[in-house]
């Protein structure tokens, strides 16, 4: 079911540009001394531009922490994170904030939308915060693809869970960010709505070359990705190219999950 991934390597381009995001020697420690918890204990990982990558691992493996650090939401204790050529770990809070709204898209598990804004306002919010105008054609294309045309004037409370999550995906895609980070995007959805959202993420990768990094604990969701990065105890524990639900499940079993 998974078609071959067109890896776009153009001869002559400098190698770092091939990776949308990469981290080297990433550590993140909570607390100190005897009670210190090493959520990330030295992770080197890179995410290819234009690919859909899933991060998986048992509870407490550090997969969420990894994503937070990669997305500039959390500050690593050590190591470096690069978004393209930009080193996130060197940026101050305001610079990080601006980088987030200009170059990163987010889809969270829950509480994705602001209740006081309608769907349209939620979708354009990050671009408005950045003081940019969305390209109307692109806006229409995104909205059409996500099937939200009739729902733009609705408040989040008037939308179903699946619709809310599609609004969140539209928001993430609208600014054509360098990377879209999705944190358990299907965690709160029924399986049909979840499949819809995953389809949308995958098609955005296939059709527009969008880079997507998704954290999930669901092998079926991970099967939508081009590649799965496995994490255990804060360290990389393997990779699966062109995963299927079964290959992911057996790999997870191997990690003791």
């Amino acid at each position: 079911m998974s078609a071959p991934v067109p890896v776009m390597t153009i001869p002559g381009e400098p190698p770092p540009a091939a990776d949308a995001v990469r981290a080297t020697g990433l550590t993140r420690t909570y607390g100190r001394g005897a009670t210190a918890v090493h959520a990330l204990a030295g992770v080197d990982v890179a995410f290819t531009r234009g690919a859909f990558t899933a991060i998986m691992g048992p509870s407490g493996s550090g997969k969420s922490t990894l994503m937070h650090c990669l997305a500039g939401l959390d500050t690593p204790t050590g190591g470096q994170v690069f978004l393209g050529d930009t080193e996130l770990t060197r940026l101050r809070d305001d610079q990080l904030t601006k980088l987030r709204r200009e170059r990163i898209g987010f889809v969270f598990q829950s509480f994705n939308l602001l209740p006081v804004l309608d769907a349209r306002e939620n979708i354009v919010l990050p671009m408005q915060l950045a003081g940019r105008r969305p390209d109307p054609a692109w806006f229409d294309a995104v909205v059409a693809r996500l099937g939200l045309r009739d729902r733009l004037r609705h408040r989040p409370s008037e939308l179903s869970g699946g619709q809310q999550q599609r609004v969140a995906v539209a928001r993430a895609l609208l600014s054509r960010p360098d990377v879209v980070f999705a944190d358990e995007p299907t965690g709160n959805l029924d399986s049909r709505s979840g499949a819809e959202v995953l389809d949308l993420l995958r098609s955005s990768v296939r059709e527009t070359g969008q880079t997507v990094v998704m954290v999930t604990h669901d092998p079926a969701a991970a099967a939508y990705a081009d590649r799965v990065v496995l994490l255990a105890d804060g360290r990389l524990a393997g990779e699966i190219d062109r995963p299927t639900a079964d290959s992911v499940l057996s790999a997870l079993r191997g990690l003791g999950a």
Partner: protein
Amino acid sequence: MFRVITAGLRAHAARLVASTIAIVIAVGFVVATLTIGATTRSTVLEAVGARYVSADVVVTGIQDPAGLDADVAGLPGVGAVDLATSTSVQAVVPGRSGAQFLLVDSVAEDPALRWQQLAEGALPDRPGEVAVSERVGADVGDVLTVATYDEEGREDASQATVVGVVDLGGDPSAGINGRAFVTPEQVAAWGGLGPSELRIAAADGTDPDSLVADVRAALADRDVEVRTGEEQAEQEAASVTGDAEILTTVLLVFGAVALLVAGLVIANTFAVLLAQRTRELALLRCIGATSRQVRRSVLAEAAATGLGASVLGVGAGIGLAVLASALVGTDSPVPLAGVEVPLSAVVLGLVVGTGTTLLAALAPARAATRIAPLAALRPLDPAPLRSRGGLLRLAAGLLLLVPGVLLMAGGVVGGEILFSVGGGALSFLGVVLLAQRAVPPVVAAAGRLVRSGGVTARLAGGNATRNPRRTAATATALLIGVTLTTAMVVGAASTRATAQAELTAQYPTDVVVTGNTEDGVPASLAERLAAVDGVRAAAGLQAGGVTGPDGYEGWTLGVDPAAAAGVLRSTGDLPLPAEGTAVLPWWTVEGWGVEDGGRVTLTGDDGPRTFTVALGDTDYPLLTVGDLTALDPDAVADTVWLRLDDGVDPAAVVDEVTDVAGSIVPTAAVTGLASERAALDEVLDVLLLVVTGLLGVAVLIALIGVGNTLALSVVERRQENGLLRALGLTRGQVRGLLAWEATLVAGVAAVLGVVLGAGYGLVGVASLLGDQGELVLSFPWLQVGAIVVVATVAGLLASVLPARRAARTPPVAALAA
């Protein structure tokens, strides 16, 4: 459970600071008001009623003094009696030219009834000796030259040696006239008027109340008033200061306002605290606490907070009163000497403070009992977007508002201040109830207005109306303070304008200088006086003898209307004559049988002439100079009217004028009405300042409430703020979001409050002063504008702390479900 409460109090001590401050301020206010009220009363009583302190019984309204003291002296239980007499004289103090008007009182012969406090020297023992008040400016040993006039107007000069200087303490009238104290014989020699009152000291061991009854019985056929010294003192004090009791009552109304506002703020604070602790309380429920136990723990926490804050408030109030007393002293319209703390103030402060806190915590406590045990396991729910509006509240609000407005309308039309006060209170309660409904839509509308302010402003507009009930409560607290402040400012402005118009009509001349001689004064006197620093204009008047319709020749003044017009501040009560018009004193209506606009015939050396009558507040008939000299060619310059520059110290200019006039005409008498006007002005100023300051307290408490509400929003919207941060809202923008929200709520409350307050202020003035002659409405745009700006900016400031907290929300918070 007690453990949990005390642990809770310790853990949340910092969060309770806002409630504590609100209660401390409100209770402190009430206690300070009561204390200052009691102190003012005792100070004024002491000063004005000083003469009655030693008297156990006072008899006033004496028509026929003959044998009065003998009648009383014979009664059992009477220790000493003093028939007080008084007069007035013109006195020249060595080293100062010009005569000074002195009020002269007799000194009791019996030491028990001597009330005067001596600053130095002694009280007079024999004729020829005098004790003077400090205002006279004489020292012990000075010899005063005293001029008195008998019934025919003949001058009689005598001398008196100053033997003592009397300290009149906080007597508000001490600064207006000089006072002199002499023996009763001397008062009689100086043309004493009939005795004004009989003061009686009880013999040792006699109860004043029974003595009053005895004296009343003994004098039953004499038609006199008999009171205890205390009653008489209170009567005098009331008539001198306006009414100290009313002042205290008014201030207590403000105290009640402060408490009401504090109550709203506390209710909000507890809502904040409980929302922050939803999971904690739910956990308590999970592990077996009943809802009753939860409610009790919340109420016990409120009681402890309320009591603690009330104790602090009582202390703060007494401290404030001490400070006010030290700052104000006795030399002010609200004289304060020392501090008198009534026990009732302390008790009331404690009870009211604790009670308000408990009452305010009731609703949040009830809400706390509804927390389901499962809430401990769920993430914090965002606040509901809509809460049900209370139909009951709406109905009650309208039921209070409509009759209240009607009552006020009746009060304005009928000039009945009591109607208006009642109507105002009713309708304002209605407004407070309705505000819960009316404020959120207005905030929403204002939010739409500021949408152009960018995405943060738009978000803030939405956020401000998310929890309408809370927004309404916050705004209402501020609204109350702003409304009342505005009402006071607007009311005071119109009161002042009206009072000034009335005063200038009543006292159109600032200073009157009269020659008091048959020969008249040099014509140059007016020019010389006009040259005195601080005098803006002078008008000289002629005086002569003109025979009225009753056949008697009387003193008549002639004025140059053009010159006088530049001197008089108002011609409302004293019109200026034109050629052929005579301005006559009111007594001529009966004495001469004239009427306003009628005709009167005045006879001079060359025969009678007929004039048109205009009635006015003048002591003598007033003609134009031309008409007067036509009737009496021997008319002489006699009187000079002066107008002072605005903003000068009237007392200093009047002293200077007295010196100049005295050096030219030794007998000249100077009457300065400007001082009285300035004194009244000062009273209004001080009152306005005090009241505005006090209401500012209510506004301050309300602003603490704004900060609290925002703090609650920050707690509730932690996830949301995290999401916004993740999506690219910078910390500055998060702070801006909160600032916009605060500005919206505070701004709407301020604008609504100012509109309401202006209405109440105008209604109050209209019904208070409407029946007392011309009402002059004045709207202090600048101050009212300042109220809006200050309240809004202060609301903005109140957002600073919550905004800092919100800005610290890590973006990850959005993901930590």
